[in-house]
């Protein structure tokens, strides 16, 4: 019992918080690209953020409920229609058995999430339901699949304000293990450069476009392959930066100029192809303050959930309403 997938885009997969504790075996954590969206979905459905959801890139699909259930929609907003009526993003909605939900295409951002009450209840593999396609765990969702759901809870018609992480902008980074290999003038130029997210981006890495000279470590010395972490900005031999994403390998042989702070990581992954990104170094101390505040906000995330009171059919500014309302602190 759950959601039947009738038709869907090419890049839908079940994700959760991923697999921690396997670095020594060479397995990166993977999981949802935008974990903030998982927390928002969990708050809307009043359930654990460890529940699995459907991650959708670019577009969603057509889904039919085989039982009564609740859904929530978070992350990159997509045009969404329930039984012929548009419904709002960043909100939870009830579906009855036989209802049809059509999601897509993306209106802003990159990764959208469809949550179900009880979470998508497939069998875990290595303590997680997350698809990690590069290492052969799980599979893309395809037409005919049934997404099984957990127990129904009555949590429909709620909404949550979100932040502005879907349009690019400034991203804060901290110095990391190899930052000092890059001379100050190169780091300064990196901060002054306007980058655009290249269309060549996936769950392993996001390529950054720029004009002018590259950022290659001038020493030209090869480095020993070393531990990397999602958010690391790796500079390849030709000077091109790549932000490593949640399915990067555990080690990498290119030097890294810095690491995106956890609070801004979702902004990097959600920035659509072609949109602008700038990077600014902050100190470790400042980053710790920002992250401490962000975690405190996350602890209170359920207090931001409010009833979806306006009748969606009367809302002309339907999508913009939820996208711009109540940008949060620490986002």
């Amino acid at each position, binding site marked *: 019992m759950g959601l039947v997938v009738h038709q869907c885009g090419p890049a839908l997969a079940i994700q959760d918080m991923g697999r921690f504790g396997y670095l020594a075996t*060479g397995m990166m954590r993977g999981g949802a690209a935008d974990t903030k969206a998982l927390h928002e979905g969990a708050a809307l459905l009043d359930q654990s953020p460890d529940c699995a959801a459907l991650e959708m890139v670019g577009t969603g699909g057509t889904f039919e409920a085989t039982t009564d259930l609740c859904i929530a929609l978070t992350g990159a907003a997509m045009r969404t229609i329930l039984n012929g009526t548009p419904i709002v993003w960043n909100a939870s909605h009830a579906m009855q058995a036989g209802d049809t939900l059509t999601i897509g295409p993306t209106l802003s951002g990159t990764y959208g999430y469809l949550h179900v009450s009880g979470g998508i209840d497939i069998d875990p593999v290595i303590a997680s339901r997350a698809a990690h396609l590069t290492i052969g765990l799980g599979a893309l969702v395809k037409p005919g699949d049934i997404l099984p759901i957990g127990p129904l809870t009555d949590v429909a018609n709620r909404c949550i304000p979100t932040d502005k992480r879907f349009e690019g902008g400034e991203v804060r980074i901290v110095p990391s293990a190899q930052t000092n290999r890059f001379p100050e003038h190169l780091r300064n130029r990196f901060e002054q450069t306007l980058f655009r997210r290249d269309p060549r981006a996936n769950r392993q890495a996001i390529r950054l476009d720029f004009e002018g000279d590259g950022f290659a470590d001038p020493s030209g010395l090869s480095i020993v392959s070393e531990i990397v972490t999602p958010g690391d900005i790796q500079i390849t031999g030709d000077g091109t930066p790549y932000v490593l994403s949640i399915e990067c*390998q555990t*080690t990498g042989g290119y030097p890294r100029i810095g690491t995106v702070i956890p609070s801004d990581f979702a902004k990097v992954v959600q920035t659509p192809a072609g949109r602008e990104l700038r990077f600014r170094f902050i100190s470790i101390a400042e980053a710790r303050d920002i992250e401490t505040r962000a975690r405190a906000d996350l602890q209170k995330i359920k207090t931001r959930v409010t009833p979806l009171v306006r009748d969606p059919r009367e809302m002309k500014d339907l999508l913009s309403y939820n996208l711009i309302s109540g940008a949060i602190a620490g986002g």
Partner: protein
Amino acid sequence: MAHSDNSYPTISNVGLDGLLVTFAPSLSDTANRAALAFRAHIETLSWSEIQESASTLVSAFFRMDLVQHDPETMKERIAAELSIREWLDAPLPEGRRRWTIPATFETSVAPQLEEAAELAGLEPHIAQKELCDYSLRVLTLGFAPGMPYSGYLPKHWDIPRQSQLVNVPAGALVVAVRQLIIFANPSPTGWRHVGQTAFQCFRPDTDTPVALRPGDEVRLTDVSKTELDRISATDPSGNGGAEWKLI
């Protein structure tokens, strides 16, 4: 590969995800041993701040929440443990295993054995014998889950990677830069394809998804392709006929 550099070991942060202790600036057998020994030492201390640890070719990594725990304090604590001895000559940790893994070197599944042997200055049958004669240490696991980078072969095996990539199957043995790898999955590689095993590096549907651990020793034993095919068909464990004992 010997070196001495007073600026090592270094301790640095990896974003806000943990601290990295690096024992040498370039590939070094002693630095790998130090990384294995130091990681094992820190593990025995069971610090509550450490969420997990790993060792790579020349470093040990300790994942910890550097938002909650002050990086400078944690660096000082790591530095204090580094100072208790010279880690470059520390004994390897206990509980390691020596694996004997069947491998075949028949040309149909070892297309670059001849070429690799020539680069190493050896006749192919000598190269094949050498690959089986040495017990190699799993230096680290990476590239794919459970995939061992093992070394070090003697100096004449310091052969470069090739710029032209070749496609190898799962279980393939490849060699370069004094190291031997068993491939986890079918993949393109710049390393030379010199043999084939039936060893599965990553077995996600089992209780032990990754059988090898950094620090384990791997020794190949030469079998015919027919024998390897028989093993593949009859060993459901994923070990591909491999056996291990504690060392």
